[in-house]
């Protein structure tokens, strides 16, 4: 590793020295050299220093990467070629430099070496030469072709338009062909790397692609500008900036800071903008042409109409193109969002449960270990989609989901890079609806559980209260009244006057009536026979019944709440049957089925009980213990009340 680093360092130092020398030569030629050495180019020449400087940055940040030296070599190649050409030019002047005839001889064919900087960069990016003989061959082919062209053109007149003589012609043609093949191979190398590469490689290659794609565009712009009569160095300035600054800068970013920006978005936006510009220009031209030729109206009208049409189409066109381009440039994101949106649709249509959102997100962001946790009001900490507590371990990568200023949940990732985080954030944002629905459902469930629990606590309290009240009536009031009665009895014993005795006797009878009344009240509160079980209590009810009452009771678990509720339901329904239905016979059946108790009261009365009529109390009583009440009552066909508790 250290050897690699040291070698890379040496390459860079060598390149930097060479660049410095070459730059000095170029500048000296411009300042001191003969007329004919074009001075305007020298401002551009300073750009050659940019890749070298960037190479140094990469070398610092990633010492083992071959990209640093490759960048340095790129700057070196261009500036050296220019130096040789400029040196050669002095041979034709009044004071030729030392050895300038050699440079003049080599000069006409030296240009392919300029390309070798790019060539090396493309082949080596981002992790050195790809394994395999093919790529080695490509790597050798490039310099070989450059050498062939150089030899074929050596000594020829750069201003001559005809082909060199003799054997040089086929050599030049073969050299050019091989150069094309080598450059094609280098491009193919990029494509193969992108196809086979891991996520990081793809990310880095996207940066380079973005910058590289700008080069032909800038070149095209340069041609247009040159056509318009702008001097070469200025016209080609953009192109040179693209090739010497943009591409090396992109490469540097790709190696050192590939997570700096959302490159996919950048690419798709850039491409979409360019395509939109081209398309709207085409549109503009078409409209102008159609109006100009077809209607032959004034040209001002044509331009105005074209502007109008173009302006109308611009925004939709951009959106459409952006969609298409992102589908191509950032397939993963498009597929991910499509999957999430489809799921959201399904949730909206009721075809999927919102709680599946975690699984969908896992698949969408290609992170099988991802977890979605929610913040539910009233529950401390985070919970999973089933409502179980799900604490987030410290140090885990996660993206936070927020509405307004409150955190509603967290998506915990197991694969984390800033691109992953961006994708996860986007996916979670797209899945906001199901996440929010899941959260609300959890909240609702918790609230319902609370209500159910508090209701059953209330019912239990009422049952207890009834029992206590009944006891108080029996053990307190009733005993006191009885004691009074006994005192009266005792008093009567001592009286001799028959009139007084009769008076006391009637008082005793009144007391006895009060005791009976007290017992009746206590019974209404809670029949004491319930202590002997539901069957005993219902039989007692039957014995008090003015109409025949058939009672069939299964054994019930000793649950006071259940037994009391069943009894009260039966008693109330039976009372209704006597009072309202004019029944001749009533039957009460209590069955156990599957952990639930079914109380059925049927009568042969007039029926016709409306669904809501006067059964609210029964309904509430049954619902209070989480049961259900069902009433079937056809007119003239009796009534059947069924409570399942």
């Amino acid at each position: 590793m250290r050897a690699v680093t040291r070698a890379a360092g040496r390459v860079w130092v060598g390149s930097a020295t060479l660049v410095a020398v070459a730059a000095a030569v170029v500048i000296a030629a411009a300042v001191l050299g003969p007329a004919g050495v074009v001075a305007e180019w020298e401002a551009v020449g300073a750009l050659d220093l940019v890749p070298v400087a960037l190479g140094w940055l990469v070398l610092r940040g990633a010492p083992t990467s071959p990209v640093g030296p490759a960048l340095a070599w790129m700057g070196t190649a261009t500036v050296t070629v220019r130096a040789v050409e400029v040196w050669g030019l002095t041979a034709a002047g009044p004071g030729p430099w030392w050895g300038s005839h050699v440079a003049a001889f080599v000069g006409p064919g030296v240009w392919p070496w300029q390309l070798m900087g790019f060539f090396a960069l493309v082949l080596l990016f981002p992790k050195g030469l790809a394994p395999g003989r093919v790529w080695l061959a490509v790597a050798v082919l490039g310099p070989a072709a450059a050498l062939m062209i150089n030899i074929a053109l050596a000594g020829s007149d750069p201003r001559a338009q005809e082909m060199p003589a003799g054997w040089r012609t086929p050599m030049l043609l073969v050299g050019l062909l091989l150069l094309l093949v080598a450059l094609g191979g280098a491009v193919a190398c990029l494509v193969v790397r992108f196809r086979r590469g891991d996520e990081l490689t793809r990310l880095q290659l996207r940066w380079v692609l973005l910058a590289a794609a700008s080069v032909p565009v800038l070149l095209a712009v340069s041609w247009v500008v040159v056509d318009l009569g702008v001097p070469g160095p200025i016209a080609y300035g953009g192109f040179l900036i693209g090739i010497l600054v943009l591409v090396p800068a992109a490469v540097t970013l790709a190696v050192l800071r590939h997570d700096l920006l959302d490159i996919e978005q950048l690419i798709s936006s850039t491409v979409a903008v360019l395509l939109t510009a081209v398309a709207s220009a085409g549109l503009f031209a078409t409209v102008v042409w159609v109006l100009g030729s077809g209607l032959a109206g004034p040209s001002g009208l044509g331009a105005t109409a074209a502007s109008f049409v173009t302006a109308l189409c611009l925004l939709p066109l951009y959106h459409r193109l952006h969609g298409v381009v992102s589908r191509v440039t950032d397939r993963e994101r498009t597929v991910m969002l499509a999957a999430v949106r489809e799921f959201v649709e399904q949730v909206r249509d009721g075809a999927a449960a919102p709680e599946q959102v975690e699984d969908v997100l896992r698949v969408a962001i290609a992170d099988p270990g991802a977890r979605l946790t929610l913040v539910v009001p009233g529950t401390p900490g985070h919970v999973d989609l089933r409502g179980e507590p799900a604490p987030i371990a410290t140090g885990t990568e996660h993206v936070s989901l927020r509405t307004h200023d409150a955190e509603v949940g967290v998506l915990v990732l197991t694969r984390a890079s800033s691109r992953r985080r961006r994708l996860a954030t986007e996916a979670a944002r797209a899945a906001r609806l199901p996440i929010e629905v899941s959260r609300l459902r959890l909240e609702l469930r918790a609230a319902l559980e609370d209500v159910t629990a508090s209701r059953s606590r209330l019912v239990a309290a009422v049952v207890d209260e009834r029992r206590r009240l009944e006891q108080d009536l029996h053990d307190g009031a009733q005993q006191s009244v009885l004691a009074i009665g006994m005192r009266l009895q005792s008093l009567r014993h001592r009286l001799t006057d028959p009139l007084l005795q009769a008076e006391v006797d009637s008082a005793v009878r009144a007391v006895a009536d009060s005791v009976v009344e007290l017992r009746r009240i206590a019974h209404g509160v809670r029949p004491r026979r319930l202590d002997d079980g539901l069957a005993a209590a219902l039989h007692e009810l039957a014995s008090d019944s003015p109409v025949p009452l058939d009672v069939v009771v299964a054994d019930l678990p000793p649950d006071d709440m259940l037994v009391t509720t069943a009894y009260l339901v039966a008693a109330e329904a039976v009372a209704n049957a006597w009072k309202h239905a004019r029944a001749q016979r009533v039957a009460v059946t209590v069955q156990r089925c599957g952990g639930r108790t079914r109380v059925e009261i049927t009568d042969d009365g007039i029926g016709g009980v409306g669904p809501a009529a006067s059964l609210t109390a029964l309904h509430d009583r049954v619902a209070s213990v989480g049961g259900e009440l069902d009433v079937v009552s056809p007119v003239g066909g009796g009534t059947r009340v069924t409570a399942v508790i």
Partner: protein
Amino acid sequence: MRVLVAEDSVLFREGLTRLLREAGHEVVAEVGDADALMASARATRPDLCVVDIRMPPRMDSDGALAARALRQEVPGLPILLLSQHIETRHVLDLLTEGACGYLLKDRVLHLEDFLDAVRRVAAGGSALDPEIVKALVSPLRDGPRLPMLSPRELEVLSLAAEGHSNAGIARRLVVSERTVETHMRGVFFKLGIADADTSHRRVTAVLVYLGRTPPGA
């Protein structure tokens, strides 16, 4: 007659004691819970225990359970159970053995009936409160497995269960004693109770009718 009163309500206990004393009985002990009942019954050997079914310590059927335990220790010890309301757990077995009664507490306000029941039980007879009989012998209580008694037979059986003699029943129903005897024989026959000459046959009849099989039947 020496009577033991076991009752946790002080007011009621004092009233009851006074009534018993005024009726010429000797109240040998007044206790307020089941344990004290056991202890003082052993110590004083009363002629009759008047026991509240519901008593401390558990405020459940402690009185009835204590009475059963006492009967095991002293077979034939007359016991008159009292309760605030009808409560048949742990009571029915006891009733089949004779020298046992079960009255609701308000019966003390019908003083003659109450003192009559006290005398009957102390003499080895039985006494059931009419309310309790009514509750137990409901015509709707029967299942198909028991023979159907005629309304008149049921009436006679109810009175018999309360502890009345044939003569007493005849007086109440305003019929001749022979008619009562006929009805009783009908009841015994229908319930399959052997015509043995025991004084508790009547209560046995009620209990059989209620679907409980008394010992030895």
